[in-house]
């Protein structure tokens, strides 16, 4: 009597990627294309993440995670799908981070002498740890208009923030924004319209 346990790695590879392995030249070309794409979005993605989480190191971690996830899971998708996919991953990362931070804040809020969730509280213990910005960014962040805009955008509901950031700041069209947000184009238009309405009320003449 014998017992045999075997694995078919070709099957595993197909399961992993859904397709056979790529030819060498395809790998190099795709890597080059991916590098070019990531280079085109990385700084803007970082600023979007930084606006949302208000911390440079956390924003860098979120962007790095989004890059890796796009490379691992979606590099074989057509490159024209990468942008909405990347921003979708990015916003998922931002949301996960904010949830974790919210839990931490609640835990610290239970401790005597600690601060709660108040956004205007002057000394969030987590922001104090890694919140120092380099001088050039500090100068830019000191720009009153940008600070005011960022603060106003942060106060928007999450979906309105996303619609405004992707449509207005990132310059994506409605279809791309809908793909990135995972909703219909009609929803994008609604969120964007409401975001603009709120910002107009809050900012008034600031943008002019």
């Amino acid at each position: 009597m014998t017992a045999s346990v075997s694995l078919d790695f070709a099957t595993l590879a197909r399961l992993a990627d859904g397709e056979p392995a790529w030819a060498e030249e395809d790998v190099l070309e795709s890597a080059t294309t991916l590098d070019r794409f990531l280079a085109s979005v990385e700084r803007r993605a970082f600023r979007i993440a930084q606006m949302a989480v208000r911390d440079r190191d956390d924003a860098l971690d979120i962007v790095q995670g989004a890059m890796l996830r796009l490379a691992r899971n979606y590099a074989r998708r057509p490159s024209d799908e990468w942008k909405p996919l990347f921003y979708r991953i990015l916003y998922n990362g931002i949301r996960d981070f904010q949830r974790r931070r919210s839990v931490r804040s609640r835990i610290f809020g239970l401790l005597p002498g600690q601060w709660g969730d108040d956004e205007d509280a002057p000394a969030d213990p987590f922001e104090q740890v890694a919140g120092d910005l380099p001088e050039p960014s500090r100068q830019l962040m000191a720009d009153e208009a940008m600070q005011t805009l960022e603060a106003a955008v942060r106060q928007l509901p999450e979906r309105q923030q996303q619609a405004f950031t992707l449509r207005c700041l990132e310059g994506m069209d409605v279809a791309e924004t809908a793909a990135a947000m995972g909703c219909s184009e009609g929803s994008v238009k609604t969120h964007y319209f409401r975001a603009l309405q709120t910002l107009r009320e809050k900012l008034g003449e600031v943008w002019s």
Partner: protein
Amino acid sequence: MNGERWTENERRARELFDASVEGLDAETRSRLNRARQAAVAEVERARRSPWRTWLPAAAAASVALLAVVLWRMPGNGVEPTAQSGDPSPAAEVVEMLANGEGFDVVNDDPEFYTWLAAQELPANGAG
């Protein structure tokens, strides 16, 4: 506020945002660059040998299956044999897995353990 004014506000917002992007410091740019390179390297590695991503898990699964098969074989219990006092191969594998050591070992040399799991084994475990 009319539509034209609002368009101007949108343009202004984008200008502010673009300026803040352009003003990123060298260290942040460098870290973004390194993050990008790591991502590109990752996809190159995965594409050159996609099976490697699955190998540790596949090897661990193989060892687990091997242990189950050996466990079910007649005469291959986990108790040491009466004559030698040594545990049988099946008992060693099962005990290793039960102690949580199996997956660490497999991760050390997944190809070997996958090969091992693919071998036909004698029913009595005598080798």
